[in-house]
């Protein structure tokens, strides 16, 4: 494989993978706490429009990213309130969040249509480094791509190696057990859901500020759904999410290399999804004995004294 092609696959794996990774990491935390939030698409869209709006008005893309993330957190509060406090069906609440988030993003985005950001965030610009195989395609990535990489390690560490991780996982597995030890299940779930929103908002803002710094509606284009699939795909593990997102990005990108070689475009287009299916099946074969699966209390509202 020539250097250009290899560089492209790695580059695109990170480029396309980063927004997916950010959203997936957030959803992993929410689901680990037992909250299924199908509303990623809506939260991302809201984060994208707020992020762009702020970056556009203030000229500060970093502020845009920050407020975009906070916007995601804000809208996720709705889902948190409905699914944690009001104990409604989380699937429906999540779907409603998608509709609401996309609606708000469309209305709020009207003034920005066709506008571009004057300042954006780029990675290290060094044409000579960019040519180095493998390393070159990583070095040129933007800071948020590295943030995503670092976050997946940090979040993995927090989840599996710290007390907070034990609390979070326990709340998602057996909230009654956590409650009995004086853990505030509701608080943990609220925080996890809000964190999920924060990450989805960041993913959205990443799209509109860094990935493609100009405004058009519908910028999320279904990525939120892929993130939900990747959450399961990664077996609720932030490290797995890292390679799962990059893998998905790489597979999606490599279909364009295989075009023009006689395979129908749409068969190539099915590849990322078929690969995902196959890997999930293989993983299930391997994990069947180890009891790694969805958190036991996923999508089950917690009511003290019931269980």
């Amino acid at each position, binding site marked *: 494989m020539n250097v250009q092609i290899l560089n492209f696959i790695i580059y695109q794996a990170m480029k396309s993978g980063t927004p997916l990774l950010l959203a997936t990491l957030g959803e992993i935390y929410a689901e680990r706490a037992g909250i299924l939030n199908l509303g990623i698409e809506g939260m991302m869209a809201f984060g994208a429009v707020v992020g762009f709006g702020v970056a556009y008005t203030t000229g500060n893309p970093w502020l845009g990213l920050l407020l975009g993330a906070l916007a995601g957190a804000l809208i996720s509060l709705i889902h948190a309130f409905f699914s944690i406090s009001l104990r409604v069906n989380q699937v429906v609440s999540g779907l409603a969040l998608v509709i609401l988030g996309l609606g708000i993003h469309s209305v709020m985005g009207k003034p920005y249509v066709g506008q571009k950001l004057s300042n954006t965030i780029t990675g290290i610009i060094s044409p000579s480094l960019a040519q180095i195989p493998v390393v070159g395609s990583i070095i040129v990535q933007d800071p948020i791509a590295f943030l995503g990489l670092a976050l997946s390690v940090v979040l993995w560490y927090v989840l599996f190696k710290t007390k907070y991780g034990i609390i979070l996982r326990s709340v998602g597995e057996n909230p009654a057990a956590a409650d*009995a030890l004086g853990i505030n299940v509701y608080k943990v779930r609220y925080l996890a859901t809000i964190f999920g929103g924060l990450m989805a908002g960041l993913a959205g803002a990443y799209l509109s500020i860094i990935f493609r710094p100009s405004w058009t509606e519908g910028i999320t284009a279904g990525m939120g759904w892929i993130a939900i699939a990747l959450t399961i795909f990664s077996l609720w593990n932030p490290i797995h999410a890292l390679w799962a997102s990059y893998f998905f990005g790489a597979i999606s990108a490599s279909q364009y290399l295989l075009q023009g070689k006689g395979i129908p475009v749409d068969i190539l287009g099915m590849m990322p999804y078929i690969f995902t299916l196959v890997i999930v099946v293989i993983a299930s074969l391997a994990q069947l004995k180890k009891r790694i699966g969805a958190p036991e209390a996923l999508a089950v509202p917690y009511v003290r004294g019931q269980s």
Partner: protein
Amino acid sequence: MAGKVILEMRGIVKRFPGVVANDHIDFDLREGEIHALLGENGAGKTTLMNILYGIHQPDEGEILIDGRPVKLRSPRDAIALGIGMVHQHFKLVEKHTVAENVALGYARRVFKPLEDVKGKILEYGERYGLRVDPDAYVWQLSAGEKQRVEIIKALFAGARILILDEPTSVLTPQESEELFHIVKKMREDGKSIIFITHKLREVMEVGDRATVLRKGKKVATLEVSKTNPRELARLMVGREVLFEIERPEKEIGEVVLRVEDLWVLNDKGLPAVRGVSFEIRKGEIFGIAGVAGNGQRELVEALTGLRRVEKGRIILMGRDVTNADPGTLFALGVSHIPEERIKMGIVPNLTVMENMILKMEWRQPFRKGLFLDFDTIQSYSEERVREFDIYTPSVRVPARTLSGGNIQKLILAREISVSPKVIIAAHPTYGLDVAATEYIRNRLAKEAAGGAAIFLISEELDEIFQLSDRFAVMFNGEFMGVVRPGELTREEVGLMMMGKRLEEVRGGA
């Protein structure tokens, strides 16, 4: 020995939709005492303790600790006040390790939380005999081990008031003795223990005082030294009880179930049943005694088709049914009274009458053509409800609204009414009140007399002694020996439960 009163509950009232679980209950606890809370199931013991532990809020009444009124809004408040509780249903995260379960509440450091607790877990293990591997996953543990984790958690909390909810139900007599030692040691440390139980023997053995509840009301608080089991039983049940089982005349007939060199794996993939052989005859009750986690569950699951048999054969009425599925076995006349009756035995949101025909929904006369015949189902269910004395307002209410004893009667009614050839009964009276226990034991004896072969697993030696014609003691997946009740003493059986073979017990005796 009795110190000052450290806890007082005054006039506690707790209502649930349709019932008054606690009706103006007064309760007090002194420093350094073991206070037994005695009562039948449904008497309100657990509710009262859940209030004390902050899980429920009382509708009326007040709680004083060290003479100061307190509000216990959540377990967090209770823990802060030095109250610890070991629940009857374990509150453990199955997918996590023992250490993680402890660290959930008691790790002080954010990083390396497990290091924080592992040493102490081992230390408690040494000190109290609460041995458990901190790195083992909870789902791999036996019920007994899980309880040890719960007690360790309570110890971690540094509780000065420890609530133990039916703690001995999963322990061997020896282990129970050990627990009593631990409890007494804690008492010597000045800690106070509330010991919930319905076993009179335990009250007599370990309690300083006993409070008896009946139907949500407090009946009496007595000094244990000044009372006797008979009085306690009368207070608890409201009438004299004699644990006498009618044992009708019966004939032992031909072999119904034969098991040959059975090997079964547990969830971890390790052999849990190792080369067990036995046979049960028509009219016979064959008991299995042993501590939880020694392969009984796997044996039952293998016999009922819920778990794969790795090696060996199961022969029912001369037919090889090794690895037959549960549906086939039921059709061939194997009834199963499961260990976890709510988790497995009923469908909580379906009605009583729908539960009454579980496994039979495709059979005549409950099905007419494509459809279920609800008239027949209803009349059938109503007959069963009458016959088995199941307390329910109607057969159309969801099964979850029934009490534990009535749920067990429902299962019994369903499983027995099909005239089975074999009844596999796992812990049929576990956690039931005296009346229900009595009823169910009598009923099983009657079924045996009627010609069923009964396979009975129980951790209560009394039950095994009373009911079975022969019984085996199971340890580590093997039979330590098969004996008749009366051949050995309680203590000798206890030794077998700890892994001594019959020959050794006899040889040692």
